[in-house]
């Protein structure tokens, strides 16, 4: 299996040959920042196209077909349009907060993206508290949504922002607890160690039924945290025009839009890493030959394949289920997901204590 550490180490040694350590650090930061910006843009373009196509196929339509072959250049054309649009600001809006909100949302997505393990060694931030860091950072986004709703001087924006506040704060619990279920199994909060612990098989298969329940809860709560799918109350277009980003236009709107799609990628990435083994190929216990064959597929393909599968699942949810009402949304979290999750984590702790996992 190719280890990206050799590549990053060679870059580091060639840089430190002629430069002071501070300069090396700065240059490495810039390289990583550029890499993530390119990834961010590419993800936005590809995911928006995929969303429109898949949504169309779920509804027996064709989706964008005119711009380029099969409408491939549609999202690029949309991006150019958004860049050239006039950024409007409402008259009584709080100008400073209004302009700040999209950046807070983008900031939270970038910080979360930094902790994604893409392949062996291709991992920008590998904290020993990775899971905690990721859940903490991905919930900064809700502050951006609240600021956007508050500052745009629009009642629909404000209602949307308040709904998203209630929603994200509640579902954050379920996401954290379902991740903790696997942390109990893996015995570590560090992403690279969680992946390494899945060498003999992914946790979703090895963790009996509790891991499966945790995965289902994670997918539900993760979809709710990205304010997508059946949980898109903050922007509920039939009730609140566009919710918290009603008053935004042009590039600032594009930021919200991109952040939503990249958040979906992040949730799918966490799910893939924690439950489906991240970049770890599909291994079965000690079947040496089978494991060797699976190792020939590069880790990047495994990671992006799993993420694609989970994103497809989230899109499937979005285009199948009707939107929940706010009281149903909160009842689902507090009366169903949270108690099930607490019982589930207890059962999992008991299993680990007895050493019953495979």
């Amino acid at each position, binding site marked *: 299996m190719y280890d990206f550490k050799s590549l990053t180490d060679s870059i580091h040694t060639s840089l430190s040959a002629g430069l002071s350590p501070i300069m090396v650090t700065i240059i490495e930061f810039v390289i990583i920042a550029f890499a993530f910006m390119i990834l961010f843009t590419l993800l936005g373009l590809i995911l928006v196209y995929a969303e429109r196509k*898949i949504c*169309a*196929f*779920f*509804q*027996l*339509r*064709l989706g964008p*077909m005119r711009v380029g072959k099969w409408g491939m250049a549609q999202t690029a054309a949309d991006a150019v349009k958004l860049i050239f649009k006039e950024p409007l600001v409402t008259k009584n809006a709080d100008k400073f907060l209004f302009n700040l909100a999209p950046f807070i949302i983008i900031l939270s997505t970038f910080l979360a993206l930094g902790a994604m393990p893409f392949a062996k060694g291709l991992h920008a931030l590998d904290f020993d508290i990775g899971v905690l860091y990721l859940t903490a950072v991905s919930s900064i986004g809700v502050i951006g949504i609240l600021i956007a709703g508050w500052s745009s001087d629009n009642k629909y924006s404000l209602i949307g922002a308040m709904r998203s506040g209630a929603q994200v704060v509640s579902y954050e619990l379920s996401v954290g607890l379902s991740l903790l279920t696997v942390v109990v199994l893996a015995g570590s909060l560090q992403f690279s160690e969680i992946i390494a612990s899945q060498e003999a098989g992914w946790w979703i298969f090895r963790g009996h039924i509790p891991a499966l329940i945790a995965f289902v809860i994670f997918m539900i709560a993760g979809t709710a945290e990205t304010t997508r799918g059946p949980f898109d109350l903050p922007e509920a277009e039939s009730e609140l025009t566009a919710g918290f980003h009603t008053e935004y236009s042009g590039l600032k709107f594009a930021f919200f839009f991109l952040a939503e799609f990249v958040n979906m990628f992040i949730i799918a990435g966490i799910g893939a890493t924690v439950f489906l083994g991240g970049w770890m190929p599909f291994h079965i216990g000690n079947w040496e030959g089978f494991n060797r064959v699976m190792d020939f597929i590069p880790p990047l393909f495994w990671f992006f394949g799993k993420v694609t599968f989970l994103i497809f699942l989230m899109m*499937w*949810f979005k*285009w*199948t*289920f009707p939107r929940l009402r706010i009281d149903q949304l909160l009842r689902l979290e507090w009366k*169903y997901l949270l108690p*099930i999750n607490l019982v589930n984590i207890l059962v999992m702790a008991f299993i680990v204590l007895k050493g019953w996992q495979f």
Partner: protein
Amino acid sequence: MKAIIKYISSIFKALKSLFRGMAVTGHYISHPKEIITQQYPENRETLKMFDMFRGEVVLTHNERNEHRCTGCSACEVACPNGSIEIISKRIEMPDGKKKKVIDKFVYHLSMCTFCNLCILSCPTDAIKMSQDFEHAVFDRSQLTKVLNKTGSKLMEGVR
């Protein structure tokens, strides 16, 4: 105890109904042949409108350039907004009798609401709705059409 059973069974019921919904959309995405979107300008040659489609009123002519319109103007009377004007003339038959035939069957497409009343009122089934729907023209006067072809005459035996 009852409440707990109800709680647990409600979870499974909910999951079952969610899976049923996902099965429906899963069927849709796995059967791309069932897509109903039509790519209109590209499929112009093969496009077929449904049978009851009301495109515009046409006067049917057979291959000998004969139509079935007797000029009774029932359609003109039936039309709620005056889209049809029948201008008739009298011609002398070989046996010396005078007969009323149509000179011009004028149809104002710009006023027509495609209500189908003229077709229903026609006693001889002379007119019908065509499938053609591309009505855009560059001048309004082109929307006023004369439906009977030049030199056409009444079909034998229609009265």
